[in-house]
């Protein structure tokens, strides 16, 4: 059954990347280049807008390709919210070709994962509110993010350890915000296989932190994380950088906030917080 | 005398409508030493392939030791030196390895080299006079000696029927003579049925009892001394109307 569902899912990816517009939907479109931005856009824009996520559910947004139809959608949209700086070059190119407002979530940050820090993410929400002329809605979302931030701060206040291990360096913003240290097995995006002694060094580092778990993100294969974890005598657990959510999880009602809370739960366990 | 080969009304073409062979009737008795000759492109090789069961006749019957040739069970071993060529691949292969390969048949496809295998291989090598160079790589030998290696390979299977197609390609005149004598000796000693196919049969003419000329069908079939003088030059062979 799962095989059939996956086959249909795969076929749908082939046939229709991006959403199809029904004839009767006359609302203005906001194009968001991947999930967290789409989440924010939906909350701020409300039902008067149609929000389109350029990255299909469950796909990794990094380096996505855009079909000609996608490019047209970007060009014609009322507003585009995206992340510049090489995260999704195809989207950047499409945005450059467009006249019309856009919101760039990148700011000055070198690490693209800005949405994992609720306070930093608030700035994107605020800018969305300005661009859409919906300051009230934006403030409501910012309040939710502040609450998220509060819960993080409280939960992570009293912990035995401050270092957590991830398979790639997605959580820099989060770590900085809450005074934690992220030990990443690879860089900002999944990389080539390291050399043998690099693996050994990582294992030693993991052991040195005393971390009971190596975190890996759900969307990617985690061979390196599993190998390092096995050598270090710890297990692998999921920490979601929320670059996208699979159709399954969206169907279960998961969203940015719920996953951030799941991640908080995983972190508090790994760091031994009271 | 029982028949090694029976071809009756055999016609064959590689493509529909093509007539490489037409209405061929041929009988080879066991223990005969026959030369098959004819112009290039006249169908000699094709005739051998049909005879050996490598191709199925489009019309007529081809029997090998009484069985349909293309479904031959291998009851009596066969030997075939195809018109060739060199041994496939660039791997160095020793003479002994070539001859030992002759021990592999459909009836003995897997299994290690037995003592019996070794004995028959050594025997075959001696017969063709390659005993001294058995462990030399094949490519270090002359054309004539390489051919002997392949003859030894065919012999190792103890064939009841041995077909050689253009065995003199790349072999100098003197070696051709000694090759013909070797075959004659084998024929005399072992009673193997030998079919020697060549577009020119001067070397074996004195050793064979029978010559068959092929040009789409059998144009001549009889003892060498019956062969009209002008037909010694195969370029002058006419199709009988």
């Amino acid at each position, binding site marked *: 059954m799962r095989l059939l569902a996956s086959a249909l899912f795969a076929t749908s990816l082939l046939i229709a990347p991006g959403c199809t517009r029904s004839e009767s939907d006359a609302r203005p479109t906001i194009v968001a280049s991947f999930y967290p931005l789409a989440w924010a856009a939906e909350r701020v824009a409300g039902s008067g807008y149609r929000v389109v996520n350029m990255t299909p559910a469950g796909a990794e947004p990094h380096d996505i390709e855009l079909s000609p139809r996608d490019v047209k959608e970007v060009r014609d949209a009322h507003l585009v919210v995206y992340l510049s700086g090489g995260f999704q070059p195809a989207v950047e190119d499409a945005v450059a070709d467009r006249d019309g407002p856009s919101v760039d979530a990148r700011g000055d940050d070198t690490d693209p994962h800005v949405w994992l820090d609720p306070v930093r993410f608030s700035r994107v929400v605020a800018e969305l509110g300005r661009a859409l002329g919906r300051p009230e809605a934006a403030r409501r979302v910012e309040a939710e993010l502040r609450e998220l931030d509060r819960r993080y701060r409280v939960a992570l206040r009293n912990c035995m350890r401050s270092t957590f291990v991830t398979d790639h360096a997605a959580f820099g913003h989060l770590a900085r915000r809450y005074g934690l240290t992220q030990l990443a097995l690879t860089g900002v995006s999944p990389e080539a296989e*390291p050399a043998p002694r690099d693996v050994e060094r990582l294992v030693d580092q993991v052991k040195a932190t005393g971390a009971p778990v190596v975190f890996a993100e759900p969307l990617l294969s985690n061979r390196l994380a599993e190998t390092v974890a096995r050598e270090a005598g710890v297990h692998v657990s999921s920490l979601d950088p929320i670059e996208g959510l699979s159709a399954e999880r969206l169907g279960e009602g998961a969203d940015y906030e719920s996953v951030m809370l799941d991640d908080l739960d995983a972190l508090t366990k790994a760091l031994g917080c009271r | 005398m029982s028949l090694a080969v029976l071809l009756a009304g055999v016609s064959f073409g590689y493509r529909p409508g093509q007539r490489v062979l037409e209405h061929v009737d041929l009988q080879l008795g066991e223990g005969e030493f026959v030369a098959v000759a004819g112009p290039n492109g006249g169908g000699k090789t094709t005739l051998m392939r049909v005879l050996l069961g490598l191709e199925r006749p489009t019309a007529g019957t081809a029997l090998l030791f009484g069985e349909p040739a293309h479904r031959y069970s291998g009851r009596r071993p066969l030997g*075939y030196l195809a018109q060739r060529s060199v041994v496939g691949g660039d791997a*160095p292969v020793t003479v002994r390895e070539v001859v030992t*390969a002759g021990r592999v048949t459909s009836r003995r496809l897997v299994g290690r080299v037995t003592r019996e295998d070794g004995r028959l291989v050594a025997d075959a090598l001696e017969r063709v006079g390659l005993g001294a160079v058995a462990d030399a790589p094949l490519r270090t030998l002359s054309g004539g000696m390489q051919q002997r290696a392949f003859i030894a390979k065919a012999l190792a299977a103890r064939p009841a029927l041995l077909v050689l197609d253009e065995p003199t390609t790349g072999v100098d005149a003197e070696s051709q003579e000694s090759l013909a004598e070797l075959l004659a000796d084998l024929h005399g000693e072992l009673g193997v049925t030998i079919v020697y196919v060549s577009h020119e049969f001067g070397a074996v003419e004195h050793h064979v009892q029978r010559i068959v000329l092929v040009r789409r069908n059998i144009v001549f079939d009889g003892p060498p001394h019956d062969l009209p003088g002008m037909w010694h030059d195969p370029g002058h062979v006419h199709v009988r109307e």
Partner: protein
Amino acid sequence: MFESEFMRLALAAGAIVGVLAPAVGFFLVQRRQSLVGDGIGHVAFAGVAAGILLDVSPILTALVAAVLGGVAIELLRSRGGAAGDQALAIVFYTGIALGVVLVAEAGALNVDLFQYLFGSILTITRSDLALIAALGAAGIAMIAVLYRAFAAVIIDEEGARVAGLPIGSLNVALAALAAVTIALSMRVVGILLVAALMVLPVSAAGRVAWSMRSTLVLSTAIGVASALAGLTISYYADLPPGGTIVLTAAGVYLVALGVSAVRGR
């Protein structure tokens, strides 16, 4: 180096593939059937992409795809003639195109395809090794059993045919062996370098060996040595292991080339 389990697993996997790949490559090269190996490699990669899309173990789907593809390619190739060639070309290019599309879609899911292209020997698990060992042993056993038959076909195909050898079935068996080998070798050196591991040790051995059997034995010896030495070098020199293994094999080939030149062959 031996203290880390992942290195021990890598060395074991490398050794097994180091024996199997050249052994199978030996027959492919002698039969001038590198096209079959090429085609299988592409089909295997399409199989990986299919496995990723379907959330099934990619090495398993690669294996299935490789075997089916290899057998199909072999059956079409042996049909011979223009029709056989055309059909083969169609399957070949359709396979590659399918692979491109599937890979693009799998790339949309962005699992790290890099590891399938270039190998991931350092992340081999114990169960991976068990599979590699089992299939590797089966493959080597099959070669041992069929060696004389394969050799007979290489030495004299027409003669083998007349002797009643099932040439078609042997070719299919070889294609299946090649498929399994490629699927396994994918973990060690990646799809892009599989052919190198199958061919380089064979070419090296062919330069200095003195018989067919010694060529085969030497090929596998060089294969194992390249894998083990390559891994060791990558360890101490901090280099990617898959590429280092193949470079080591290339180095051995150059040495063999030099030796044969000196000998005057």
